[in-house]
């Protein structure tokens, strides 16, 4: 540092506006401390100026409000996954979809797919099952009857069901499909070998390979599931239902394709997907976040509209948020979730329900809430519920 320069400094401002001086006051360090100590020693008349300048500089330092590392990390994650919507949308999601949007890596590529074959090789088991099942490719069946079952498939072939690990028996590498069957009244979340996370709703079936060896990752679904697909542009992920084929690179979305429903629906939460009818040369439809694609089985038409995504992902967190839904449809959801028969009287189709149903409550409480909000009456008779106008 140049002592000559500072000898000419005659007012406090000179020091306050000198970058090297400011830098020393704010970040004192040995070497510079020595410089200033000896400077004051040689130029005692400058001491007051220097003290005042240092005092003013320090007094100008702000007391900063709290900004946590966690907040900064959250922004960084979003920067790395560029296509994700901004915070407003995410706050919403975090509330309703267990914060999973943060784990998603998203690819922005849209591909036109042409279905070569209409195929749906999933053998949907139509007889009601009491216990959840996973049917392995080698024919072995494992049963589970927890209400919420966590399943993990590792790439080495090991399978974990609620902390019980089933060792891989097959040694050779080939595509083997496992099938999971979740009865009404139960739910499951499954992690596949590529890291994709799937929440399976009541009465749903999923068929998936133990390891994704081909050029694509394909799973078959009957029922309803929420997908949080691991990003991999090399291997697009396909969800194939009886009616729809949905192609993604990495995203989160909800698919509802129960055989007994009159429509099949896909709702996109983040990222981009393309969907088409599961038919030969079907035309593809692009979807952007917040859109719902509805396939009407009777007319075979595909419709697209904007929806409030939280309504569709809420079941993942154990509740249902419903807005203006015909009460018969609400009751069908409740019936599936609790695996309880609900019979309905006439004239209910025109009555709608809006509200939040906590699925941790037991079914009679849930029905009492619906009854209160929509002015219908509920009665119970030997475990069967009856809802009338």
């Amino acid at each position, binding site marked *: 540092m140049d002592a000559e320069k500072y000898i000419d400094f005659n007012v406090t401002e000179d020091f306050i506006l000198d970058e090297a001086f400011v830098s020393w006051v704010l970040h004192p360090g040995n070497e510079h401390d020595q410089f200033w100590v000896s400077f004051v020693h040689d130029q005692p008349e400058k001491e007051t100026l220097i003290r005042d300048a240092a005092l003013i500089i*320090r*007094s100008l330092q702000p*007391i900063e*409000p709290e*900004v946590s590392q966690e907040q*900064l990390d*959250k922004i*960084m994650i979003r*920067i790395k996954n560029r296509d994700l919507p901004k915070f407003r949308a995410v706050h919403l999601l975090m509330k309703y979809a267990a914060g999973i949007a943060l784990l998603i890596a998203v690819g922005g590529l849209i591909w036109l797919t042409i279905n070569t074959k209409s195929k749906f090789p999933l053998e949907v088991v139509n007889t009601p099952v009491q216990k959840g099942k996973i049917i392995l490719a080698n024919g072995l069946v494992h049963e589970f009857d927890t209400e919420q079952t966590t399943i993990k498939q590792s790439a080495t072939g090991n399978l974990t069901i609620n902390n019980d690990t089933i060792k891989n028996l097959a040694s050779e590498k080939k595509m083997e499909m496992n099938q999971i069957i979740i009865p009404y009244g139960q739910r499951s979340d499954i992690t596949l070998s590529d890291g994709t996370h799937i929440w399976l709703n009541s009465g749903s079936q999923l068929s998936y390979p133990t390891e994704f060896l081909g050029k694509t990752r394909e799973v078959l679904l009957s029922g309803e599931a929420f997908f949080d697909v691991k990003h991999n542009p090399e291997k697009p992920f396909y969800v194939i239902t009886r009616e729809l084929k949905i192609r993604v690179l990495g995203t989160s979305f909800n698919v509802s394709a129960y055989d007994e429903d009159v429509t099949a629906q896909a709702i996109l939460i983040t990222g981009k997907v393309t969907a088409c009818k599961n038919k030969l040369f079907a035309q593809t439809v692009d979807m952007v976040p917040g859109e719902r694609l509805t396939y009407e089985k009777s007319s075979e038409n595909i419709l697209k509209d904007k929806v409030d995504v939280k309504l569709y992902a809420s079941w993942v967190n154990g509740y249902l948020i419903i807005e203006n839904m015909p009460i018969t449809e609400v009751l069908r959801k409740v019936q599936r979730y609790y695996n309880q028969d609900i019979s309905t009287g006439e004239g209910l189709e025109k009555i709608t329900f809006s509200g939040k149903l906590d699925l941790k409550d037991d079914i009679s409480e849930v029905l009492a809430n619906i009854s209160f909000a929509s002015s219908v009456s509920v009665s119970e008779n030997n475990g069967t519920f009856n809802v009338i106008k």
Partner: protein
Amino acid sequence: MFRQGNNDALALIYSDHSKKLYLYGLKLTSNRTVIEDSIQDLFSDLVKNRKNLGDTDNIHFYLIKSFKRKLQRQLQKESRYDLNSKVEDFIFDITYSIDHELINKESADQRMSLLSKALNGLSPRQKEAVYLKISEELEYEQVAEIMEISIESCRNLISKAIKSMKDTLHPKAFGFAVILRKLFTSGQ
């Protein structure tokens, strides 16, 4: 390094600067969502455009400047949707450490409280200019560019601010007399 496509370099730049940007943002608005969106935008653009980035010797200046622009644009957009919130052009919400503690134990409390009063009497633009110059350690030219004013008026803003503070430490004869009289009367 970053321009060559190194993502660790992005993480490094981010960890060095994001908090400072956030804190600067909090002085311009209390809306944390808008701040976070703007930071996300800023760094996403950085990733997207890294091949086109010029050689900036002062990345800190570049980031502050672009961040402020994004933040203001965002705030304008917000105010359009929300009739209750209006964009105040000149707020600079800063709490000085002097308000809470005695920085220098040797100096009399008297001087400290006068200094504190002088500080809080600064205009928002003075506060911002001084903050950028002294706390962010930027140069006049850079402060002027960020605040979209001429270098000359930037110098004026800052020197007036500092002069008003200095004068409280060494009041001129008349001012000093006034203060003494005040002290005397308040003491009675």
